[in-house]
């Protein structure tokens, strides 16, 4: 097994290096785009699965970059949690990329290599984020992923640059808050290594300086993850972004930031400090999450465009996970991590379906979905699976993580969170059945209405490059749902240490 010692580093380096190769070679010939984006992502996916299996067999290990021993050097921590996130990031981005390539060909003809340079750097940044065990390194990687996202979003048409600019302002303020929090921690502890800081924090008296550091770090991350009152930048940024970019950004960005929040709580400030010295903050976060779920679900009801509706669902799902984390018990935490995995696959499935539909109808307003079930049966079947998972109908994976979250909420006695979860399930039911009605039932009952939309009679099944990844992601929803027991065991392996 010695030859695999550095494997997780190669997993991270593959998209990063091929991004630079793609930028140079892509200028010469467009044929490089395909192998240089799919190739490294296949390598990363296979590699990260091997890393995960190794971690499960041999336990967590830490890796020091450049042989500078921690706490002075930058440490990478590979534990079951980060290895699992590595698999999620590489697999989700691999599946999304097939569809993204097909879309990039029509959105940026001749400039695909530039688009995929940013795209690959962002994936590498996301992988770095889940691996790093150094608080300052985390800031740098957070900005690498954010800056590439700003660029990708700004490549869209129309209002996209304006949405991207708002995201730049809010995102940079978020990152600056995080940096400020790390500064306070550095003043207090003199260290930047997460494990080292956690050890020293345990010995400090919990004064206002530590609380300030904690507040800055958390508010920074909440801005980046678009937790409800701080979500303003997300709907515009995600709905005006180019389709090819949002396929990868929407499933991964917010979810990885929530993973970072979990990391910061568990490995930087320690759960004893986070959950028990400030009980008001703990229940405040659960309340904020519950209110966020209710409000953003209600806002989703008001949308008349499929993609815009999905962006509000993303914000509601952020509330699920944040609430689960702050329930401060094993079930809630397991549910939150499980939901990170499930939600990235669900969001991927729904955005792939939206992209497949848009490739034929050219727009995603509800009217253009009329009668799609007959014209795009496979796409709509996969879309329905994704919808079932968001609603939480077994055996799709969304049901199981929601179940864990409910158990955690009942155990902690946070009934407002239980109510919010159930409310959001009902709203999602309404949201998606309205779309299914547009796509299916109206088609049968109202032939006259369909005739008015004769323009759409040319609509047929989406191209294979978009259909195959969509079907794969839809099947993954069921497979993950059936494998929930195994995955929860992996998560518990890590969480049992803290609760």
């Amino acid at each position, binding site marked *: 097994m010695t030859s695999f010692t550095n494997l997780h580093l190669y997993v991270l380096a593959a998209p990063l290096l091929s991004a630079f190769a793609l930028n140079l070679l892509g200028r010469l010939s467009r044929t490089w785009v395909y192998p240089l984006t799919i190739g490294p992502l296949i390598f990363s996916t296979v590699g990260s699965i091997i890393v995960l299996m190794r971690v499960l067999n041999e336990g967590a290990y830490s890796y020091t970059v450049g042989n500078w021993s921690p706490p002075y050097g930058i440490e990478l921590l590979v534990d079951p949690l980060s290895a699992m996130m590595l698999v999620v990031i590489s697999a989700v981005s691999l599946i999304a990329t097939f569809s993204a390539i097909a879309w990039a060909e029509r959105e940026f003809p001749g400039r695909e290599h530039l688009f995929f340079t940013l795209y690959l750097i962002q994936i590498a940044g996301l992988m770095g984020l889940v691996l790093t065990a150094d608080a*300052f390194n985390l800031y*740098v990687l957070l900005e690498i992923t954010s800056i590439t996202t700003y660029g990708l979003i*700004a490549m869209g048409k129309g209002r996209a640059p*304006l949405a991207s600019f708002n995201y730049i*302002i809010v995102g*940079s303020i978020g990152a*600056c808050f995080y940096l400020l929090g790390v500064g306070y921690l550095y003043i207090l502890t003199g260290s930047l290594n997460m494990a080292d800081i956690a050890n020293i924090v345990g010995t400090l008296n919990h004064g206002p300086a530590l609380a300030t550091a904690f507040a800055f770090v958390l508010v920074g991350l909440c801005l980046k993850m678009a937790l409800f009152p701080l979500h303003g930048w997300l709907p515009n940024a995600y709905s005006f972004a180019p389709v090819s970019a949002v396929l990868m950004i929407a499933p991964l960005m917010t979810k990885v930031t929530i993973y970072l929040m979990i990391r910061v709580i568990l490995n930087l400030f320690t759960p004893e400090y986070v959950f028990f010295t400030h009980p008001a903050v703990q229940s405040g976060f659960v309340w904020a999450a519950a209110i966020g779920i209710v409000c953003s679900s209600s806002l989703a009801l008001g949308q008349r465009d499929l993609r815009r509706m999905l962006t509000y669902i993303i914000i509601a799902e952020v509330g699920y996970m944040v609430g689960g984390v702050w329930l401060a018990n094993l079930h809630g935490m397991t549910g939150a991590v499980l939901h990170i995995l499930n939600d990235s696959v669900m969001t991927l499935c729904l955005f792939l379906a939206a992209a497949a539909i848009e490739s034929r109808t050219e727009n995603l307003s509800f009217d253009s979905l009329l009668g799609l079930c007959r014209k795009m049966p496979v796409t709509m079947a996969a879309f329905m699976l994704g919808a079932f998972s968001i609603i939480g109908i077994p055996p799709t994976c969304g049901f199981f993580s929601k179940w864990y979250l409910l158990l955690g909420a009942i155990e902690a006695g946070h009934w407002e969170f239980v109510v919010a979860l159930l409310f959001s399930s009902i709203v999602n039911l309404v949201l998606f059945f309205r779309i299914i009605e547009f796509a299916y039932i109206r088609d049968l009952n109202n032939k006259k209405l369909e005739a008015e939309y004769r323009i759409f009679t040319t609509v047929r099944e989406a191209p294979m490059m978009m259909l195959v990844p969509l079907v794969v992601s839809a099947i993954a929803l069921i497979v993950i749902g059936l494998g929930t027991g195994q995955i929860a065991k992996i998560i518990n392996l890590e969480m049992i240490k803290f609760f």
Partner: protein
Amino acid sequence: MSELIAGIVSKYNYWIYVILMMIGLYAAIGKNNLVKKLLGLNIFQTAIILLYISMGVKRGASIPILDKTSVLLNGVSPVQITNPLPHVLMLTAIVVSVSVTGVALAVIIRIFREYGTLEEDEILEKLNK
């Protein structure tokens, strides 16, 4: 009152950073012109850089370049050298801030081409038409 002033004067570096940060935050959120917003963001980032730099400073200490023979003879005395780590961190933070500014300026150019103005209210007016 004099205690308060003495407290402010003795920790003036923190006060400067807080004031700069508030100016920057206000400009980034409250200003109407997009370039001014970006400048506010830059002031905000600079304030944080100042905080980091000032935490590494020690009174009477010198730059962290060691003389080999004197170190071998007398050892290292941490009181006499400033902490270089915050400076190194801020080099990275400056790089990040420059890249954010670069991307934002590029985006601003695209916005100007799209709407012909950089005033937020005028852009919103054009959008609502």
